[in-house]
Each structure stands twice: as structure tokens, then as C-alpha cells.
């Protein structure tokens, strides 16, 4: 990983090389390592180091971009000349906005050196301990441990510069019974390796597999559902893009070119927030186009309060560029309830551990399809009665969290969507909702 001094020197060099009217350059570097295991044995393990320089230039408002991962002078020069050649032969960039001058970015945390340098033997021993737990419990374990250090710096011809380092360690574990009849999964990540509870991750996965044995088949249909925080994070992702809304092609567009801004779209206890300084989710203080990030409420108390305006679209619409989003935090007003309390409060319903293969079906209604995976249980009279087989769902995320559908909300916690493999992170609570649409049954385990 490149230091701030080295990154700055490379950015300065790139800017010196270019003769373009305007330019934004960046240098990113990484140190990544992993250990993967399956069928109770190690499979692959490796390490990668890399550094990449990116150059975007404008000549007579015409844009070109190039990147390369050779960072010697000649290669950097070549990347700059390549970008300039592309700019010269491109049409005018009608959405060109001059790059920003010097900005002030409030520092964040989010980098811990020991997270990047997990000792090889320590990692192997920790994963071996999980495999031993799997063997003792009579299940077959698989999982993925990875650690990252990333450094990124960018600079503009107009005088802006910023450097940021981040670290991340993640572990996910799947436990399956040897008969292939049940499976459990657990994933957590953190920027500080000291805060990743490795043994808990293994334990939770094993426990879910063991409590999912001999699942019964339930008819698909509409059920009251408790979504564990993992399931909620897998499914709930919001985008509040102003341009697509203004163009009439977002779920927040309404008739006559209007939008739902100011309307109550979610349960009044829910706020959707971006905050780079959240202590559990420190994120880059740089929002889109280099705008200094600030804490932004997109939904406050269920009311749609803000859209994201890029610098270009903000100029077109006479608005200020939006200093976010850089992350997704679901804030909850009022009392929260644990998953156990939600189960006790459920007369008849389902507990869902995780979702999988989630894809957009209808962008007009934010309708998604996907499947439950690694643990679904039937609840009756306040108790888990038995595990059930998986379902396919077709569910609008807006309807899921709409006023009247949300009954109880858990305390928000740091989560990571399972399809991101632990690379992403968010702050998400568990939810108990009145209606969730399961459209077919799946025998997959």
C-alpha cells in the first residue's frame, strides 16, 4: 500500500505530465490476502499487491480517461498521453463540470494496520479451530476469511487532493449436515481485526445448520416474517438518484413529472442516512465528484427528504450537489426489540436468516426476486416450531418497510450483505413485518 507521501508524489507527477485544460488523477493501491476452506479442508489461499493510476482529462471540454498499473514515470506518462489522445478525438463532454479546487475533508478512522497484516499461521489456526468445531458438531464447514488494506488518493488540476486508507477483515462460514438436508451461514466483517469474533461466526453457522435439520414443506404465500439483520441487509438497498427520478424512471417518480419528495414512504420509525463518521461504519469522507461528505438524511422519520444530486445534475436543476451517500445506515426511532422478543410476539409467521440471488424485477415498484437460504423456521404461538424449506420471493422493498407493514424493529448493527462476500458494510436492524410475499417453494439447501 502506498503512503500518503508516495501517493501525493504520484498524483503530482500525473498532473505535471498533463497539458490538458482540466484533469482529475487518482492512485489506488491494495494489499489483499485470503484463506478459503470447504468440505472441512483448506482450498485456496493467497495474497495480492497492486497499485493503479487513473487519469481523466478534459481538452476543450472533451473528455478522455486511461488507467494503468505500471507506476514508473514512463508508464504514468503513457497513461496521461493515452487519456489526452482519447480526449482530443472525443466529442465535447456536454456534462463537463470543472473539477473541484481544494476542499476540506473531515478525517475519519477506519484503518487498523493489524487488520491488513493477519499472520499466516494465526489465520490458519483460527480457521482450523472452526473446522474442528464443525467436525465435533458433525457438520461440513466451508468459509472465506479475507483481509484488505486499501489506500486511495486523488487530485485535481484545480488544486484538490485527498488521501484515505481503509482496512477490512471478513469471515463467512457455512455449515451443512452430511445428509445435505440443512445448512447454516453467518457473516461479519470489521475494519478492526480485534473486533471480529471469529469463533462466534463459526458457532452461529453451526447452530443454524443444526436447528434447520429435517425441514418441513410449507405452501408459498404471504406470511408475517421476521428478518434477521443479515436477511434485512441482503435485501434492503436504497438509491435516491435525483436524475432518474426527474427523468420519470425511478420508484420515486410519480405522474406529471413529479416525485414523492416530502411524502411518507416508509414506517415513521425508519430513517435512511449516510454518515461517513459513524463509529461502527467509518467510510470515505469523499462523496461523488469529490464533494466533501456530510451526514445526510435521505429518509427521515419515514419521509423522503433528499435525493442525490451529482454536481452536473445539481447545476442543471439549480440545486447544491448532495454530500452523499457514502454508506447506508438505517436509524430507528423509539424502542427496539431483539429477535427473541419478536419471536415471542409472533402468533404465526416465519423467521428468515438470509436471502440469496436477489435481482431487480420491476424498477417501477422496487420489486425484487430472490430466495431464502441457510435457515427458515416456522413460528407459532411465540415459539419456533420447526424449520421449513426455502422459498422464492417477489417483494417490493418499499412495500416491505411501508407504514402499516412494519411491526417491530431490532437494534441496528454492523452487517454485510452475503452477496458482497463481506466486502460491503451497512448498519441494519432486524425487522418484523406483517406481510412478505413468497411466490414459490424451493427444495434447495
Amino acid at each position, binding site marked *: 500500500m502506498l503512503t500518503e507521501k508516495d501517493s501525493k508524489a504520484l498524483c503530482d507527477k500525473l498532473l505535471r505530465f498533463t497539458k490538458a485544460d482540466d484533469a482529475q488523477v487518482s492512485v489506488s493501491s491494495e494489499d489483499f490476502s485470503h484463506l478459503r476452506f470447504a468440505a472441512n479442508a483448506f482450498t485456496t489461499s493467497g*495474497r495480492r499487491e*497492486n497499485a493503479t493510476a487513473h487519469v481523466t482529462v478534459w481538452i476543450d471540454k472533451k473528455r478522455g480517461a486511461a488507467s494503468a498499473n505500471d507506476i514508473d514515470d514512463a508508464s504514468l506518462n503513457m497513461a496521461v498521453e493515452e487519456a489526452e489522445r482519447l480526449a482530443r*478525438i472525443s466529442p465535447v*463532454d456536454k456534462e463537463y463540470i470543472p473539477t473541484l479546487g481544494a476542499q476540506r475533508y473531515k478525517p475519519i478512522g477506519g484503518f487498523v494496520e493489524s487488520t491488513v497484516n493477519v499472520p499466516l499461521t494465526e489465520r*490458519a489456526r483460527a480457521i482450523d479451530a472452526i473446522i474442528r468445531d464443525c467436525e465435533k458438531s458433525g457438520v461440513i464447514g466451508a468459509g472465506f476469511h479475507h483481509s484488505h488494506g486499501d489506500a486511495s488518493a486523488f487530485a485535481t488540476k484545480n488544486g484538490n487532493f485527498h488521501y484515505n486508507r481503509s482496512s477490512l477483515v471478513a469471515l463467512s462460514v457455512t455449515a*451443512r449436515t452430511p445428509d445435505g438436508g440443512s445448512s447454516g451461514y453467518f457473516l461479519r466483517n470489521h475494519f478492526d481485526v480485534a473486533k471480529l469474533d471469529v469463533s462466534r461466526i463459526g458457532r452461529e453457522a453451526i447452530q443454524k445448520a443444526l436447528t434447520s435439520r429435517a425441514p418441513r414443506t410449507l405452501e408459498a404465500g404471504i406470511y408475517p416474517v421476521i428478518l434477521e439483520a443479515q436477511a434485512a441487509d441482503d435485501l434492503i438497498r436504497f438509491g435516491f438518484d435525483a436524475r432518474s427520478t426527474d427523468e420519470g424512471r425511478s420508484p420515486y417518480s410519480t405522474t406529471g413529472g413529479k416525485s414523492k419528495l416530502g411524502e411518507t414512504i416508509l414506517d415513521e420509525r425508519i430513517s435512511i442516512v449516510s454518515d461517513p463518521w459513524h463509529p461502527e461504519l467509518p467510510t470515505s469522507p469523499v462523496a461523488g465528484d469529490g464533494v466533501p461528505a456530510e451526514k445526510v438524511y435521505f429518509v427521515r422519520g419515514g419521509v423522503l427528504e433528499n435525493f442525490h444530486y451529482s454536481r452536473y445534475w445539481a447545476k442543471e436543476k439549480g440545486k447544491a450537489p448532495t454530500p452523499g451517500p457514502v454508506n447506508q445506515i438505517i436509524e430507528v426511532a423509539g424502542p427496539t426489540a431483539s429477535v427473541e422478543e419478536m419471536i415471542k410476539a409472533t402468533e404465526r409467521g416465519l423467521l428468515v436468516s438470509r436471502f440469496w440471488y436477489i435481482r431487480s*424485477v420491476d424498477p417501477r415498484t422496487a420489486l425484487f426476486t430472490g430466495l431464502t437460504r441457510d435457515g427458515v423456521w416456522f413460528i407459532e404461538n411465540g415459539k419456533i416450531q420447526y424449520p421449513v424449506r426455502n422459498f422464492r420471493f*417477489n417483494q417490493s422493498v418499499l412495500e416491505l418497510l411501508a407504514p402499516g407493514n412494519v411491526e417491530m424493529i431490532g437494534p441496528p448493527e454492523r452487517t454485510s450483505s452475503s452477496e458482497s462476500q463481506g466486502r460491503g458494510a451497512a448498519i441494519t436492524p432486524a425487522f418484523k413485518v406483517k406481510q412478505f410475499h413468497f411466490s414459490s417453494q424451493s*427444495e434447495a439447501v
Partner: protein
Amino acid sequence: MKSSRRNFLKATGLACGVATIPAWVLETEAAEAAAINKTKLADIAISLAKKLGASYADIRINRYRNESIFTREERVQNVSRTQSFGFGVRVLVQGAWGFAASHVVTPESVRRITEQAVEIARANAAFQRRPVEMVPAPKVVAKWKSSFEKDPFDVAIEPKVQFLLKLNEAAMKAKGASFVTSSMSFQNEQKFYASTDGSRIEQYIIRANPSFTVTAVNRSTGDFQTRSSLQGPKCIGYEYMEKHPWLDEATQAGEEAVAKLKAKPVEPGKYDLVIHPSNLWLTIHESVGHSTELDRALLWEANYAGTSFLTPDKTGKLQFGSTICNFFADRTQPEGCATVGYDDEGVPGQRWDLVKDGLFVGWQTTRDLAPLVGQKKSYGCLHADSWGSVPFPRMPNVSLAPAPVDARLDDLLADVTDGILIYGNGSWSIDQQRYNFQFGGQTFWEIKKGKVGAMLRDVAYQSRTTDFWHSCDGLGGKATYEINGSANDGKGEPGQSNAVSHGCPVARFRQVNVLNTGAKKV
């Protein structure tokens, strides 16, 4: 193949119409050509790995180039060229894999990274429960180039930009078309592989990936609909842009996006489906391609992509589909995105059966998977998406053979009383064992008494893999066969992206469950 940098500079010089290459470029080229001798670097890595105790080792020294152009309506949003160069060393020590990679391609770096790879393998070997075994592969010294007429990196940017702007103009001709985005991207992989088997292989691969989407918005009702291109990426050159009737398709797409606003919502229920290759390729990919990956069946992907409903004991026993279904894997298929001369452990590209007369008969294998099912050779499915990625089992081109007779679309429609004709791929989702899937599409048309009728909208079909392929009772002949595919098929941890193609004819399926995705309760 000569120095990769030399090729790159020549290509960019030609592409940009530069009469003379700047002096510093020539200096760089000369310096690099002198400094980077791939064979010498490979010798360093291989001999050091052996000395440090590796029973097998390979090194891949690869350069990846990408050119992308993005436009919307009459605007060019970005033109970019990227390249990534580096090497990765993979070693097998005491039955455990170790891998390390760097972008710094020097003899010193190769020594350091090889030592790291061995160190990683050793640290893990102490805890390894199941030592890795590999089937042998022949020593290969070869050069291979994918088939293309016109290297896209030798084509100037201006005509590419103009082409996309013309395409956008064609799409926007339709009254009611509101927006269009279009792009073309080209990939070039320059791969060098060397191993302890004595193999030394160089490959040069070109892929082209154009696409567009037209959107029609009805402001008064708040409705919007899209129609994306039906064509996908192919392992061919710039001739793809010149030979396919892109402008005609864009004009049609604009009209169809607008027509979708007024199309009849489908009534949910069971229908006979006649599915065009532009849709069916993705269903083959998800339900056949992924289910026949042996690493999934052996639980190696249990933590992410999932396992498979197929297991080794079902080989040669499970009736996967109707007897007219013949699926084959082929890493030599013309235009196939997964077509190679050799895989990433030196195994030649080849063709083999996965499903024969409806019976499941074959797996996708690598050198460390093959022995686990008693096979003595690999089918050559090892692949890494970068010099910095660990190679692991990836899908070859998996295709459905056409009918041996000359059946056309009309022949398949003729026997349908109440059905739906589907073009293009839309939303897709399938479970982690590849049973339950749901697929959308781009356009949908009623079939009534053998004739294509009105346009439908909000259609998705949902089925179970073996039920679906058992319901297949009609295939088109060679004339209906098309190849399509994905440039970015995700799998593995850390996640990797693979380009892969699937050929198939138009096909008919009986009584498949159809959903209305626009309904309040789907």
C-alpha cells in the same frame, strides 16, 4: 507473440492515427523489452518453487487491456482505456495450495512473490486435512490466438463513437422513446503460462461486448419500460460491430420500448413457451452450466455460489431432461467467450458431453477435481480473471445442440394453442442448488393457435430445472441456432468474473408457470 508492450504501443499508435510514436514511448518499450523476459522470469519462479519444496508450480504473466465507450442520447459520457499487467505464482506444497501475485514484474519481485506463495502454502499445509492431488497434463509449448478478423484495438475511436451515436439516433426515432444508453467495450488478454510440467504457453484473446438500452417513459401515468439489445459479448473482433444489423435492431428496440407501455399485462398461469436463443442462453447458463460444475457438487462453493442438485452418484443415471436435450461443453466453440487454446493449468481446450439424450453424463473438471471422481484427465476448466486472482474452476461454453432436422420458429409455433414467445434476457435468479429459477425477458408475444399475436408485458417464467428441461418437446434446427453469453459471470471467493457463451436453437417448453411481475401480488 512479441513483447506485449510493443503490441500495445503499435495498436494505440495505429488507433489514434499517430504518425510517429513519441520518443519516450520507444524508450519505455525498449527498456521493458530488455527487462521483461517472461521465459526467464518463469524459470526463476519455477526453479525457486521447486527448490523450496513445491511438487507443482506455475506462473502466469498477463496483460489485460480494455477499451470502453459509453454514450447516452447524443452525448458521449466516457471514453477510456485501461490496462493491468502483473504476475501470479501458484504452488502446491505438501498438498496445500499457496498463491501470491504482484504488479511489479521484475526478477527480484518474482523471487519475493514465489517465496510468499510457498510460505502461504506451508502455513496452511500444517492444518491441511485432505492433501490436493492433480492429474497429469502434457507438456505444451505453444502460441494461440483467438479467432478475429479485425483487432478492435487497431480501430480508431472516432468511428466507434460515431457508430454509437448513430445507434442512439436510430433508437430515439420511435415516437415516445425517451432515453437511450449504449456502449461498446473490448477486452484483450495477453497471457503467458509456465509450469513445472515444462509447459510454456502464450495466448492472445480478443472479445467484443456491445450493448444498449432504450427507455420509454409515460409521464402522465408515471409508467416506464425498457428494451435492451438482444445480442451479447462474443469472442470475435470489431467485425461484430460491422456485420450485425445494429441500427435495425436499435430502431426496432425503440419501437418495442414504446409498445411495451401499452402492451397487455400477462394473465398469470401455465403456458407453452417458445423461447428464442437470446433468452434461453441465460437459462442454460444458470440451470445447466452451473449445475454441472464439479466443484459445486463437491461442496467447494458451499459458502458462496452454492452446491448443485447433481452429485457424482447421479452421473450416467439422472434423466436431466427430455431425450431431445443434448448439452455439450466446448472450449473450442467459434465465437465462444470461454474459448481458449489452453486453460490456466496447460490443459488444451476441448469439447465433451454434459447431457446426452437427456441423460446427465459429464462434469466440468480441473486437474485437482478430476481425481476426486476417478478421472485421469482434466477437461480444462481452470481459469483466473486476472494475473492477481487464484485460478479456479470456471464454466466452459455450455450449449444446447440444435435438432438434427431443419425445424424453424414457425414449426415450433404451429403446435402451440395458447403460449408465449420470449426474446432477450431480463431479470434472472436461481437458488443455490440450481433447482428453482425465475427469468424475465425483453419482449413477450402471445401465441394463439400457432400464430404470434399481441405483445405482452410483465412476464416472468418460474420453474424447476429438471421439470423445465423435461418439458422441452421441440427444438429448432441449425438455422435457428445462435450463440450469446455473459461478459461477467460471477463465482468464487474472492469473487471473479468470467466471460462465457451459450449456443442454442429456439426451443419449445410445455406448461411452464408464468408470473405477472407488475401485479400487486406476484
